């Protein structure tokens, strides 16, 4: 009874705090501008099924793909055990699924155990890959400090979680001989063998405590994990699903059109809709492109929150490979960091961040004198060849190029800045409608 109450209170607190934190993540994602979700639902669902659920793009690199798959499958299957822990915890029962599942129970838990062993092996290998082997994509400048610690913490959490599962199951097996009424007989694939080896010979009171340590340890670790996710790169385990669903279906080569610019140029060229209202010449000039998260689309910000910092984008970026400062992963990480900063500042209610002091802070009433250029240098944005290698590489369909393109648009259209080398190009296109300023006629080649 006492345990049930304690469990209910802990669970409520953990879930409540997680809800509060996830609402903040949602609000931060919605700092981005509205963007219509285009294209058929079936095609989006297929992306989610193949890319997120089926991990299709992970298999471009076979070794990490197999290791990741072990962890992923174990994670998904362990949810069954988690449901049981909840039922047991709330109703004060023990291994409740044993009743309704009967003989199937051994099969289900044994499956989880075998997968957990695989997950354990994978986690240890991941720790070695991150900390012992020199894999360049894990050692780029943006991976110093918190991102490196974050990655290791998750792996350590995973090991604790697995140790708890096996302590819980292993002690249970030994206790079955001593208190068969409460600890009903089971036949688990791993702990059935390992339990007696590790825990055999211990007295009942120690075993009882250890069993509870395993049980509580597991569920507490799950609660910690859940509340850690919103602050971590590990959020991808949830957001990979919506991100693959909402990923734009357009061909990779297609840049998003800017209807506001198109319509203005059309009216300039006399191609506009003759019935359209006269443009308001006194209106404030709109901003084009994005120098901040509030000018990106919510789909871009969702992408930033879905990023697990694996660095596949950076590993294939031609600019990064040749030693330029640009790293697509860093751009994506910076968008998330800036979204966090804006979100926190808006929620602080501090009126010094308001553009119009008499109105409440919001994504449209916010000014802190900072923007994405405080995170990202011009040099990074200028180094991009728009080759789409980063877009192709991302296992969860994040599009770093879209973010880069939007920053380029802001620089050129709103700030009238950008690389000086591009001015002759623009002049040539504007005045002679051609990207080459040499030559005289487009039919010269015919003469040979």
């Amino acid at each position: 009874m006492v345990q049930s109450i304690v469990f209910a209170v802990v669970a409520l607190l953990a879930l409540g705090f997680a809800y509060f934190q996830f609402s903040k993540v949602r609000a931060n994602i919605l700092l981005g501008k509205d963007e219509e979700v285009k294209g058929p639902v079936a095609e989006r669902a297929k992306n989610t099924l193949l890319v997120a659920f089926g991990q299709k793009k992970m298999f471009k690199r076979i070794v990490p793909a197999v290791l990741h798959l072990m962890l992923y499958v174990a994670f998904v299957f362990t949810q069954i055990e988690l449901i049981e822990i909840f039922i047991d915890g709330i109703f004060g029962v023990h291994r409740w699924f044993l009743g309704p599942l009967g003989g199937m129970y051994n099969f289900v838990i044994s499956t989880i155990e075998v997968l957990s062993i695989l997950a354990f092996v994978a986690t240890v290998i991941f720790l070695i890959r991150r900390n012992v082997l020199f894999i360049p994509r894990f050692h780029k400048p943006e991976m110093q400090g918190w991102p490196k610690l974050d990655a290791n913490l998750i792996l350590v959490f995973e090991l604790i979680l697995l140790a708890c599962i096996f302590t819980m199951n292993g002690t249970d097996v030994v206790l079955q001989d001593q208190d068969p009424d409460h600890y009903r007989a089971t036949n688990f694939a791993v702990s059935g063998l390992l339990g007696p080896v590790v825990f055999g010979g211990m007295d009942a009171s120690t075993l009882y405590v250890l069993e509870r340590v395993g049980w509580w340890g597991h569920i507490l670790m799950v609660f910690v994990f859940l509340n850690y996710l919103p602050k971590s790169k590990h959020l991808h385990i949830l957001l990979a699903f919506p991100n693959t669903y909402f990923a734009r279906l357009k061909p990779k080569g297609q840049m998003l059109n800017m209807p506001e610019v198109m319509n203005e140029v059309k009216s300039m060229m006399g191609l506009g809709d003759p019935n359209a209202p006269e443009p308001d010449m006194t209106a404030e000039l709109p901003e084009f492109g994005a120098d901040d998260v509030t000018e990106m689309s919510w789909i871009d910000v969702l992408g930033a929150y879905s990023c697990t910092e694996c660095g596949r984008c950076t590993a294939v970026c031609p600019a990064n490979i040749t030693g330029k400062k640009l790293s697509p992963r860093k751009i994506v990480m910076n968008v998330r960091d800036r979204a966090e900063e804006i979100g926190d500042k808006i929620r602080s209610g501090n009126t010094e961040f308001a553009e119009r002091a008499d109105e409440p802070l919001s994504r449209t009433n916010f000014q802190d004198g900072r923007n994405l250029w405080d995170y990202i240098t011009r040099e990074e944005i200028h180094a991009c060849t728009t080759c789409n290698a980063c877009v192709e590489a991302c296992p969860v369909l994040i599009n770093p190029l879209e973010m880069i393109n939007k920053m380029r648009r802001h620089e050129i259209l709103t700030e009238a800045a950008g690389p000086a080398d591009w001015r002759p190009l623009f002049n040539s296109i504007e005045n002679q409608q051609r990207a080459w300023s040499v030559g005289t006629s487009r039919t010269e080649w015919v003469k040979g």
Partner: protein
Amino acid sequence: MTVKTMAEFAGEDKAPEILFWVGCAGSFDDRAQKVTRAFAEILNAAGIEFAILGDEEACTGDPARRAGNEFLYQMVALQNIETLNMYGVKKMVTACPHCFNTIKNEYPALGGHYDIVHHTQLLQQLIDDGRIKLTDTTTFKGKRITYHDSCYLGRANGIYEAPREVLRSLDGQLVEMKRSRQNGLCCGAGGAQMWKEDEPGDKRVNVERTDEALSLQADVIAVNCPFCLTMMTDGVAAREKQGEVMVYDLSELIVSGLRTATGE
């Protein structure tokens, strides 16, 4: 060679089978002009009645758009669409994957809907249909040819096999770089990089890519894009291999082994 413009066709109240979109590089760059001529020769050899826009053609706007200059892009793009729609153009071919991508994927949003193919796709079709026949099979005998996927034909539009099929019709040996197809490495020119100095770094992108091609002991680097052509040629020169390794566009390789199919 005589090549007619759309205006000339319109003057005779006729329409060509296809419009050859030459592009700025193909029109003005010395090296790319050779590709343009080679491709025009192939079209003639296949008996395809084609036209060009000539001086009515404007830059598609690709480099301006990718640099971030949407105004400039819209200006030239809308101008081109006006011209193309005025002539009622439906079918187009181009030897530039940047022009191809922009016209295919970006002009529709501006009201320009055309059936455009890249020249490597048309080359494959002409070979498959027997409209051009390669009779000189000695030029590439025993030669190692490696194919460099351009970003805008490859990743951007998913066209990987047509150019390879074309190359297989030659007598050479097609050798693949490790980074190919979806994983192909850029030549370094896209996103308007062609017109600016590199940002600070350890190496030029084109040299990185050229090194990969050279590591295969390739005799020929085959490309499908005028920008890649420049970048890879520069890369080969930077490694002082211009005496041993040649960089060619696919149409140049085909035209060198070409004899008009008899009776056409």
